[in-house]
């Protein structure tokens, strides 16, 4: 195994100094001077209603209010995978909180005053808050024109219903599979909605200058995708739309695609010469940005007498909200992968995307796999118990191995799933529970395995520019977003390794779509792999240019040259050391006084040319929709107070196959952060809607996210490395995956400790206690 200088090392983040000194600029930190206007949204109070009229005459009288805009001003549709959304509600509102109008004013106070005075008249329509209700015969149709919505070819909406997309995966012969089963278990699992809760809320500023050029600053995971959607929707050339991304204070999927950013972009086109800012309050962040979709999952699993899974029928009904332009892809992704990391020959998956009168569901760390694995991994543990087999042995037996077929008939990539399982089993000391240290407590152990593939279109690509500066420091010009995961540092490490320039001599900035080349989106845990490949290509391009130049000037054979310590050296000429800084911009002066070479500027690009989505619409067989899967395993020891139901994670172990951990410290950071976020969704995060569709807890007072007091006593991160053949240095992504096993592990541990099986999330202390002490237990 080659020993690398920077790859695989715990390199310190190259953006750390900026953030820790307070210098880092986030969206709301940018000053615009006197030309700044503030937008305040008027939100719908109805979950489903016809808009009869909007009277904003009183708002216009507030001193400082400049203009008011409504849906009439922007009657076009937009969307990432399907065009079903609007800038402002048109004839109808479809969820409480939907933007109906915007008041523009010179101060935020005036904007707020004005917004309070806008009167909207609604004619209520029947409200549908539950996906099963939305599927019933005769249910209110939320999108009667569904058939007319443009969408990507791999979506299958059903006009005349609330089904926005139905992904069907059929493999083998399900009936035969069940007939071969000695044991069958069937049950239903429920997962509600969740909120991302990045500490920085969404913020975007739009400005159309007097020359007709639109610039949008946005806290975003997807600057190029945003530029594309704005240009398309607003009818402008891409060269005239510029998206500048400042630092992002957390994304977790919520800042992917386009949500509220289109509002200031569109408003700007009517406020020429001004910059208009929309910054969401925490309440608006809860109510009107993407949420994680809700799920009702029906699982029927058959197992033969050896313990092999012979059949799986997995029906998943998604509460996808009022607009599904992004959420429908969550449904799609899971519809292809809801077998979990198992080899199962006879499979039927129905993943159904259902419109409801709730906020739009969208990308959230895990992209549907957390929701799916809660049911599946709970079910697997129960299945193992039913047949009297140790649940780890059961998983090991059925684990998917390299080259086994996935649910849609492609071959599984190389992976260390067995190694992950075995290492976690050791680390947690499975079967050897610690003794309770307090009275009234029981200890449970929970286990889960997990997998996820990036959900992306087959042409999601990455590109990079790389330029040397006079002193041989480097500007790496790329359009992925560091949303905290450490992207900038890891890309610098890749370039550093190839060019022998230390990572801290490489600058990576947040992108400007005018200057930085295309990157699809920073989502899907795919940019270490994809953008990493493009950066590697750019670095190799630079290296080629450098070595070609040296060969041309000095006539040393190229294959004897190498780069080390920021200089070109030669294996056969030990005295030849030419520092990069001597020539990477200025060229090399030759004997006759002329200069050869010049500025070294390089480029790289990565397109997954093997990916395709031409699977059969009725079976999903064929095509290669998922580039590869990342796998892992996790376990925990849970202490439960059997009188109060309160739970504490004593120890958790999580193993993930990163292919090659380019920066192990940052991988460990994802394990710790992701695991805690996952534990929060199962233990105490709890969105509550009332019967009218209003969110009752749009704040941190009552939607609890983890604090420093909620950290497990011990977390054991385990990095497994079975190389991804087409990844940079063998790497594949891991950022989302670390959340995935948390929920089923807890449910499994609760059953282990107390004998109680809880099949709905969240698994709160109250639910646990009431399952033991409640009247209806």
């Amino acid at each position, binding site marked *: 195994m080659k020993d690398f200088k920077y790859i695989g090392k715990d390199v310190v983040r190259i953006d750390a100094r900026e953030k820790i000194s307070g210098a880092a600029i986030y969206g709301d930190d940018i000053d615009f001077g006197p030309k700044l206007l503030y937008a305040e949204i008027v939100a719908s109070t109805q979950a489903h209603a016809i808009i009869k009229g909007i009277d904003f005459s009183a708002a216009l009288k507030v001193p400082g209010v400049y203009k008011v805009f409504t849906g009439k001003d922007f009657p076009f549709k937009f969307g990432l995978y399907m065009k079903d959304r609007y800038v402002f509600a048109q004839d109808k509102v479809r969820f409480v909180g939907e933007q109906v109008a915007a008041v523009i004013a010179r*101060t*935020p*106070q005036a*904007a*707020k*005053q004005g917004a*309070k005075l806008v009167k909207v008249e609604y004619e209520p329509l029947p409200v549908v808050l539950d996906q099963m209700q939305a599927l019933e015969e005769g249910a209110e149709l939320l999108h009667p024109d569904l058939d007319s919505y443009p969408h990507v070819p791999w979506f299958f909406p059903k006009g005349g219903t609330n089904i926005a997309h139905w992904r069907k995966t059929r493999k083998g012969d399900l009936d035969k599979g069940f007939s071969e089963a000695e044991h069958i278990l069937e049950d239903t699992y429920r997962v509600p909605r969740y909120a991302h809760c990045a500490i920085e809320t969404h913020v975007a500023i739009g400005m159309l200058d007097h020359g007709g050029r639109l610039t949008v600053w946005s806290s975003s995971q997807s600057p190029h995708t945003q530029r594309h959607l704005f240009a398309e929707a607003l009818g402008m050339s891409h060269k005239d739309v510029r998206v500048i991304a400042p630092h992002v204070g957390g994304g977790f999927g919520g800042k992917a695609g386009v949500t509220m950013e289109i509002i200031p972009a569109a408003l700007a086109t009517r406020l020429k010469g001004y910059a208009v800012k929309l910054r969401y*309050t925490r*309440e608006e962040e809860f109510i009107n940005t993407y949420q994680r979709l809700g799920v009702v999952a029906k699982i029927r699993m058959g197992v033969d007498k050896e313990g092999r899974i012979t059949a799986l029928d997995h029906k998943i009904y998604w509460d996808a909200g009022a607009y599904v332009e992004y959420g429908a892809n969550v449904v799609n992704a899971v519809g292809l992968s809801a077998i979990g990391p198992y080899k199962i020959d006879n499979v039927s998956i129905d993943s159904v995307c259902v419109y409801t009168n709730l906020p739009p569901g969208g990308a959230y760390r895990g992209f549907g796999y957390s929701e799916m694995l809660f049911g599946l991994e709970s079910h697997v543990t129960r299945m193992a118990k039913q047949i009297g087999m140790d649940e780890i042995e059961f998983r090991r037996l059925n684990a998917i191995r390299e080259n086994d077929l996935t649910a849609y008939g492609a071959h599984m990539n190389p992976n260390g799933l067995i190694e992950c399982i075995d290492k976690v089993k050791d680390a947690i000391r499975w079967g050897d529970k610690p003794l309770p240290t*307090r009275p*009234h*407590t029981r200890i449970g152990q929970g286990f889960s395995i997990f997998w996820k593939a990036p959900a992306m279109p087959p042409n999601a690509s990455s590109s990079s520019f790389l330029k040397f500066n006079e002193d041989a420091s480097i500007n790496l010009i790329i359009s992925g977003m560091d949303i905290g995961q450490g992207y900038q540092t890891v890309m610098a490490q890749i370039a550093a390794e190839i060019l022998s320039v230390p990572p801290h001599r490489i600058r990576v900035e947040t992108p400007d779509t005018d200057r930085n080349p295309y990157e699809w989106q920073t989502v899907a845990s795919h940019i270490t792999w994809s953008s990493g490949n493009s950066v590697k290509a750019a670095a190799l391009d630079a290296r080629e240019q450098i070595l070609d130049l040296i060969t041309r000037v000095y006539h040393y054979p190229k294959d004897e040259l190498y780069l080390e310590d920021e200089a070109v050296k030669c294996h056969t000429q030990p005295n030849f050391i030419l520092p990069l800084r001597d020539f990477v911009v200025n060229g090399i002066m030759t004997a006759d006084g002329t200069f050869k070479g010049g500025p070294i500027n390089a480029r790289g690009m990565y397109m997954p040319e093997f990916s395709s989505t031409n699977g059969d619409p009725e079976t999903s067989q064929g095509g290669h929709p998922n580039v590869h899967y990342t796998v892992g395993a996790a376990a925990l020891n849970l*202490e*439960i*107070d059997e*009188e*109060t139901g*309160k*739970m*504490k994670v004593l120890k958790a172990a999580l193993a993930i196959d990163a292919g090659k951990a380019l920066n192990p410290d940052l991988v460990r950071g994802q394990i710790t952060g992701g695991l805690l976020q996952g534990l929060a969704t199962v*233990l*105490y995060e709890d969105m*509550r809607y009332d019967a009218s569709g209003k969110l*009752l*807890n749009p704040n941190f*007072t*009552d939607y*609890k996210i*983890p*604090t*420093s*007091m*909620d950290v497990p006593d011990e977390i054991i991160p385990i990095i497994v490395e079975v190389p991804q053949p087409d990844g940079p240095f063998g790497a594949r992504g891991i950022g989302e995956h670390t959340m995935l096993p948390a929920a089923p592990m807890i449910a499994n541990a609760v059953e282990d400790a107390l004998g109680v099986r809880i099949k709905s999330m969240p698994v*709160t*202390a*109250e639910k646990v*206690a*009431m399952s033991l*002490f*409640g*009247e209806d237990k």
Partner: protein
Amino acid sequence: MAIAPTFEYARPRNLEEALRLKAQYRERALVLAGGTDLIANLREDMIHPELLIDIKDIPGLDKIVIEAGTLKLGPLVTFTQLIEFGPLGKSFPMLLDASRTVASVGIRNRATLVGNICSAVPSLDSAPPLLCHEAVVHCLSLEGERHIRIDDWFTGPRKTALKPDEIVTGITLQPVFHSGSGIYLKLGRYGGEDLAQTGWGILIDGANHYRVAHCALGPVPARASKIEALLDGNQLNEALIQQAMDLVPEEISPITDIRSSKEYRTHISKVILKRGLLAARERLAGKDIDPRTLLGGI
């Protein structure tokens, strides 16, 4: 989100000035101390004062002292000051427990105990200790002084007995028992800061005297007088504790809201009462107990 309402702001340098303003403006003026409740309410359009009277410049209002066993607190005493007041742990441990559960350091550095009782939310952590220790709220107006027993202070959710022209100038707490100890136990949803879904204060002495009070289980915090009557004069044992637990549903009127159900609140209250009585007794015997570990979860 900006604060939309506009208002005047005054910073009197002495109490007379403040009282004059309060007498003049009455309900249209609010007293501003720590502001952690008031500013949030302003922003959410819950209150619309014409004037804020900032009393933080008035000298002498931040005193905290124990005189002849009585704890005396001025209206500017913050929760941080309370927690850092050395004698509190020995003499009024229940109040120390409760103070430590209020929000977080950054809030406690500003939030005052007096401000807390003026907000009068049903889930007020400081209420059970104040009720158990027979606190008296001292109010002043240009008309004169009033001394309101804490039992009469809370008149409804977010309502107090304070008159529109009055300012609270202090609170006093009595030890009540010659050598007692107490504990405050609170139910939250996780390890981080939370408003109490139920909170119980239990005071006990070596002669089997008891005081028990709760919050978040009715429109106002209150004493559990039936449980006190049951326990009074009796040594704690398993049977007595069980009887006390059985009385809990008669003492409280919890609701189901987004934080908790009434069933869970009732159930947990029984568990808290049991564990609290035993823990208070242990503290009385000199044992060091961290109440936050008593319910599990952290």
